């Protein structure tokens, strides 16, 4: 189940799983995404950096239609987003999302949190789903918490459950929006470790984060947003060691 994504073809030769063309989005008069063009390859780990308010969250949320766009096209795994709810649901099934605030369902046990969507959205049989859920809890390192409620877990544990919950749908793409920003420092590592493991399995990942070490170590490619635009794109070493754009240099100098 975990190895199926691993693909030995080099990244450059693989096909795109996400294609964004000329995305434009406004919140009222505020132009938050300006002509964003970006493709993501199968199995690629793309890290999105940028200062606060630059549109990173808005961008990543357009990919599973949590935010509407006013111009441009988004194609995810062959389906082009439109107003058609069935297209939206198709794409959401194939993309898991992890939020800054975990957003677990507080009235359900951990196990139920993980099992609900596969049972009702994927319509998989319950015993199969339970097996997947327990395996995933094992993988994120908290099998003993299965029957507790989210409120009884630490932030780091909750975020790992949130990752397991997204993975239980067996998505092709995982989106992370600042998954460690709400965590106490000592819990950040346990979540990042899970994400690193996930990257090794060949999962396609789009990660908004401020964790520079993670970006350097795990990313295949980094894009830098500022004022709703992509300023610079490159591999971690290109971007960190030899930034081209002034605004990139400014951003890096502020954050490192």
């Amino acid at each position, binding site marked *: 189940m975990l190895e199926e994504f691993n693909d030995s073809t080099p990244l450059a030769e693989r096909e795109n799983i996400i294609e964004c063309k000329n995305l434009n989005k406004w919140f009222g008069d505020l132009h938050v995404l300006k002509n964003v063009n970006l493709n993501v390859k199968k199995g690629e780990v793309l890290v999105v950096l940028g200062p606060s308010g630059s549109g990173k969250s808005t961008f990543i949320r357009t990919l599973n239609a949590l935010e509407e766009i006013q111009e441009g096209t988004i194609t995810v795994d062959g389906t082009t987003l439109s107003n058609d709810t069935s297209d939206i649901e198709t794409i959401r099934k194939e993309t*898991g999302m992890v939020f800054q*605030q975990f957003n677990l*369902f507080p009235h359900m046990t951990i196990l139920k949190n993980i099992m*609900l969507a596969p049972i009702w*959205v994927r319509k998989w049989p319950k015993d199969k789903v339970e097996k997947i859920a327990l395996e995933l809890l094992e993988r994120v390192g908290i099998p003993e918490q299965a029957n507790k409620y989210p409120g009884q877990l630490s932030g780091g544990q909750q975020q790992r459950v949130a990752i397991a919950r997204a993975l239980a749908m067996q998505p092709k793409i995982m989106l992370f929006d600042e998954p460690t920003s709400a965590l106490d420092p000592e819990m950040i590592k346990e979540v990042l470790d899970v994400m690193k493991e996930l990257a090794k399995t060949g999962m396609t990942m789009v990660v908004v984060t401020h964790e520079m070490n993670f970006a350097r170590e795990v990313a295949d490619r980094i894009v830098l947003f500022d004022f709703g635009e992509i300023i610079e794109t490159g591999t971690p070493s290109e971007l960190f060691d030899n930034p081209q754009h002034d605004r990139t240099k400014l951003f890096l100098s502020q954050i490192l």
Partner: protein
Amino acid sequence: MNQIQYEKKPLIEKPPKKKVNILEWLKDNLFSSWINTLFTIGLGILVFFVLKGTLTWVFFSADWSVVSDNFKLLLTGQYPIVELWRVWVCILLVSILLGFSGGIWNGTITHLSIFLTVLFLISGLLPFVSIESRIWNFTGVVLLVAGYYGGKKLPIKKTILLGWFLLFPITIFLLNGFDILTKVGTNLCGGFLLTLLLAIVSIVFSFPIGVLLALGRRSKLPVVKYFCIGYIEFIRGIPLITILFVAQIMLPLFLGQGLEFNNVVRAMIGMTLFNAAYLAENVRGGLQSIPRGQFEASHALGFNSSLMTFFIILPQALRTVIPAMVGQFIAIFKDTSLVTIVGLIDILGMAKTISQNPEYLGKQMELFLFVAAIFFVFCYMLSYSSRRIENSLGVGKR
């Protein structure tokens, strides 16, 4: 070789229990400062005189024969005596279910079954009730206790749940008969039986209607949305009495011939429509309290709106508004007494009718106190269980 002896310590140490001495407790709670002492003494004197007056009246001056003579009338109105067994069967069904549920789920529901047991014991031991009533009452106690122990042992959770679902239709069938058993017209139901019927029917039906209205009010479809808003605001702008009158006079006009409802059913419809609007507003409060993240997480997992509403949003929303909803249920329960105005004789109406009988002149106090006691007991039970449920669900603690 020396062996080191370790003291065995329990893994989790309980916090030390504070020993409470009565004198110390009194000092801490009642006489901690001079102003506190003043209040204690002042209120003590007040309570003493009120209690003394009330108790002397209740036990020595009051003439309770007015209640005991009319006990059956007060509780079941004109319900034919030969058919009273049906009412008892319904009560016993509730006892069995409550007993089993108390054994299975423990907690609040056990408290409720203890409560019912006490009620049975009290009413079975009243000096003036008939021998049959005593037998029914004690059967109730036996069923509750047997159910409780049965529920602890037997794996019948599903059966009991099904039982609760079927209880309502079975009760209606038994009470009315529908010509399969001898038909007892709803107009013969009176007294506390009518009060309970009105309250339960309007709670059972207004709850789902209220939830639908609350959901409809948030709908993206303008027709649905404005219909719900219009309905809720309209109903909330009218007194219940007006609605009861309208239901009595207008419903027959609207429905034309063919569909003839008697006035009890009309009152039920009126109360249901009225309370649905209030429940809708309560539920709406709950829906608004759900953080946006819950919606986003459900969408991101691929839930469509109905799955999301059913599994994620409603359960959380309803939990947060349990206290408000039970408050509304209590209001419904007490509002049933307004039906006297449209000519139905609930327990209060019955008390009033009896008090006008010259034979019982000057004994209104006893009658109305009895009615008040019955209302209080049931309302208190409702608010007590709501508080317990609230605590056990940890509302507000999240």
